[in-house]
């Protein structure tokens, strides 16, 4: 129980790790520098290196950012490193936030704007063991349910209210061991991450009941790219170039999964983060499902007003915000602004 015992992830993140990451990602572009002076900029992910950010790694390692005249430093979030803090304080020009977080901060007065909405579908879900008698939502009544804090609780709570369920909420850490050991009957999970961790711990899909919030009118698109209004005003082309290059990086990652996974694994090993190939492969495949949902013909990277309003209304109803900020002020598509 030294301080490092803050869940499994925290243990893998020694102080040196962040410097190492910084060093790697800042020096890389320098080696590739050409005659054209590159615009230096920074981007911060939501979490430690994993396939959730494969597109950004591809854009950086395959020289796509450079092609767009950018020299991007990728910073990584973590248990004690909030991308919002980095964005607000200007330590990072761009940051990845959940849409719900973005709306909440904007409603609270933060001058941040969404320049690209990557995820089009909520990956947040509840997982339960069938052996604990949970086969459908109503079976959750009176059960112990592990929930993450803050913004991760908006959808579950709205869901419980919708189904009139009374559950015993247990704060959930970053591991799923509580759930695996039977400490809770149902646990929160991201489809692309914890759900697979459960599968990789010996649970079969047949043994599990899954509840996707996106299936219950609670589809909150998640990962988006944000910037301060000031950053946008100062150099609108920067945002446009960054968004375009990042989307191109994602396309490359999806088109070349083997190479992309190799990059992810490399980044994870360099960051001393536990890296399971099977896990990252699953994650990359799910990211594709989330960003390019089947049947969807939406341009990648766009935020639909419908999704925005739905998310905003639920936030408002749950009391987190008083008013939903106007869509036009919130969403400044990096591409649209350039074209406009």
């Amino acid at each position, binding site marked *: *129980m*030294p*301080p*490092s*015992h*803050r*869940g*499994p992830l925290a*243990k*893998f993140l*020694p102080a*040196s*790790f962040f410097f190492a990451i910084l060093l790697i990602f800042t020096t890389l572009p320098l080696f590739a520098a050409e005659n054209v002076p590159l615009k230096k900029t920074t981007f911060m992910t939501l979490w430690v290196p994993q396939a959730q950010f494969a597109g950004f790694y591809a854009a950086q390692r395959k020289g796509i950012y450079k092609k767009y005249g950018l020299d991007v430093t990728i910073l990584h979030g973590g248990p*004690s490193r909030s991308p919002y803090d980095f964005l607000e304080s200007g330590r990072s020009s761009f940051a990845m936030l959940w849409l719900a977080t973005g709306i909440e901060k904007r409603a609270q007065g933060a001058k941040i704007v969404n320049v690209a909405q990557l995820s089009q579908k909520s990956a947040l879900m509840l997982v339960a063991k069938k052996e604990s008698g949970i086969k459908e939502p109503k079976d959750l009544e009176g059960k*112990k349910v592990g929930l993450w804090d803050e913004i991760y609780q908006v959808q579950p709570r709205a869901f419980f209210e919708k189904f009139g369920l009374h559950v015993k909420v*247990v*704060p*959930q*850490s970053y*591991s799923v*061991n*509580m759930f*695996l*050991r*039977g*400490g*809770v009957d149902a646990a929160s999970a991201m489809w692309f991450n914890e759900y697979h961790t459960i*599968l*990789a*711990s*010996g649970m*079969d899909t047949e043994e599990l009941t899954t509840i996707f919030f996106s299936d219950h009118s609670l589809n909150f698109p998640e990962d988006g790219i944000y910037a301060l209004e000031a950053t946008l005003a100062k150099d609108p082309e920067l945002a446009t170039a960054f968004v375009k290059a990042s989307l191109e990086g994602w396309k490359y990652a999806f088109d070349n999964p083997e190479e992309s996974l190799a990059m992810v694994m490399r980044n994870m090993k360099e960051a*001393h983060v*536990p*890296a*399971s*190939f*099977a*896990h990252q*492969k*699953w994650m990359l495949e799910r990211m594709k499902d989330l960003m390019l949902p089947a049947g969807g013909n939406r341009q990648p990277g766009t935020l639909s007003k419908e999704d925005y309003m739905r998310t905003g209304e639920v936030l408002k109803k749950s009391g987190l915000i008083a008013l939903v900020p106007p869509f036009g002020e919130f969403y400044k598509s990096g591409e649209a602004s350039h074209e406009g």
Partner: protein
Amino acid sequence: MKDKSIAFKLSFFVLTFTGLIFSGIFGYNYFVSRQMILKNIEENARSLSVATAQRIETVLRSVQEVPKTVAEVLEEIPYDKEVLNRILSAAVGNNSTLYGSGIAFEPDAFEKGSEFFMPYAHKSGSGIKLNCLGGKDYRYFFFDWYQIPKELGHPVWSEPYYDEGGGNIIMSTYSVPFYRREGSERKLVGVVGADVSLGWLQKIVSEIKIAKTGYAFLISRNGMFVTHPHKSLIMNETLFSEAEVRGDPHLREIGKDMIRGNSGFVPFTSLVSGQECWMGYAPVPSTGWSVGVVFPRDELLADVQRLSRIDLALAFCGFLILFLVIVLIAGSITRPLRALADAAKALAKGNWEIELPRARSQDEVGTLAASFLYMRESLKKYIRELTETTAIKERMESELKVAHEIQMSLVPKVFPPFPQRPELDIYGVLEPAREVGGDLYDFFFIDKSRLCFVIGDVSGKGVPAALFMAMIKTLIKTNAKMCTSPEEILEKVNVEISQGNDACMFVTVFCGILDTRTGEVCYSNGGHNPPFILRKGKEPEFLRGGHSPVVGVLEDAVFEKAVLRMQPGDTLYLYTDGVTEACNDKDELYSEERLQEMLTQTIPGSLKGLVEETLRRVRSFSGTMPQADDITLLVLRYYGVGGEEKEANKMNLTLENTLTDLSKLQTALAEFSEKAGLPKEVLHDLQLVLEEIVVNIVSYAYSDAAKHEIVLSLEKEGNELAVWVQDEGRAFDPLKIPDPDLNAPLEERPIGGLGMHLVRNLAREVKYERVQGRNILTLKILLPAVS
């Protein structure tokens, strides 16, 4: 296989069956030893995995005691911060496996107002360092080691994790919740945790090495690799994610069984080498972890496989030796056999001097070779003798051939013998059964008008009979000059032969003397077959007079004489018993009856034709039976004095079945017509009619290409002309040919047919008969009265 050599067959079968037997034994041996080794491996794998798990369990249990005891103490005694620190220092200090230990309290549980309180002692250098944890940066309530035992209400081992500071030491925490009694409820006060470095555990497990690549590994309850020779798997992959990457559902099943706390022994693919292995696994009960021990199959079976390879190599050498031995043995058997076979071929070609293979051994082959040698000598001797015998026989045969020619030259063979004598005709034939025979015939004039004729048959056959025959013939001829009557001739011959007839040979003789002026025949029959007299228009009859004994037996025998008057046209038919005693394959004799019947049916044409017809009939009767006795025929026809005139009214013509013979017919008819004084118109019609008949026969009667005879006989008597046409062709009645349509224009009438039309108009009587395979057409034509 049938045409393969003995050496091949022998080696093929022996080697095949030896191979089968060996394969059976080898297979059984391999199977059993493999099973034995497998059983050993299973026992080893099971016991090794259980023993390893047990060792780990023992250590973990001793560690568990520390926080358990602390928790029990805390539930019993009052404490303050100092006490807690002392307890923790003692616990860490007294237990070598413990890295650190702490006591985390629920909010307000240690003292009111403190959200976090967690004294913690851990080893640092040589001493023990104490500090107090908990705070906004370390919200222990939400961590597994605290939360899980709290929620479950019982002690829990955490999933292994890397220690602080980025080192490579894996640790696990044993957490024990402790409570305070508040009324009837137990209220959670906090959790006592003990951090254990798992370095020793890794050492225990990694020390296990089986054969070259065998290894042991340990997985956590989540299936996470805690130790594994493949370092990259440790704390990164679970058995399940590995199964997913490898697409191996079997591996996933094994993993599930392992984390369920079961033990077992299963086939397993090494995660290090990819080789087929077996794995024994056993649980570490207190943590739910599982130890797997991997036994590489090929390496463990290497001994039995090496033994098998040596076995196979030895078997191969054995096979080779066996093969050579068989080839040698087979060769020793077949080499002399082959040599014998070659020698036999040479012998068959007549090479008697070829060197025969010597038998060196006394076995079957040796015996065969010896027999072969003996056979060759016997054959040589036999052939030498045979050659000599054959030479003798050939000489005798050539002598007999000469004898035959001599004998044939003894009897008259030129016919007609007396062309200047129109009053008689004579024809004879002698066919010996062997080269030479005992039959004889002869005829000669004893004076100007008297003809002596004789036919005889000597007893016995062959050379003695021939010699005797020559003697008889000479005697008869000699005596005939001096005698006037046949009985006298026979008497004298008899006397001469009978004297000193040591060989007891005799002869039957028919001797006659014809007075050509009168037709009177005096004759005596010395025991011979009675001849036939064929009188014109009458049945043939036997001539039974002059019956006398055979010649050469009784010296004083008396010979009778008889007299016959022949009318012009009568024929005397003499024969020997070679005719009547000719045999067929049913042992039937040709007999006098058949001979008589034949003579009845045959229209007397030429004498030669009569003789040849007789021979033909006898031969066809005998069929394939060889001729047993000499056959002699002698026929004599008397035409009387003025025979020329009589002869002028007759014509006998034998044609061959070719159209070229038609000219003969024309010539003969013209001659006859002139001699017999036929009117010209009759000749013309006759020519037309006979030509047509002959052409028909030539064209249609025979289906083969052989020569056949067509016999025409014409006889004018008074004002009637009789015509007979005989042929041996297929049955055909020319009278059934319809008359041609005389009213039709000439070009449309079919060719032929006119002749038969003419015949019907011309002849008084027309008759067709089929007699014994011969067509006989008889025409009787009325000649116009001579004006």
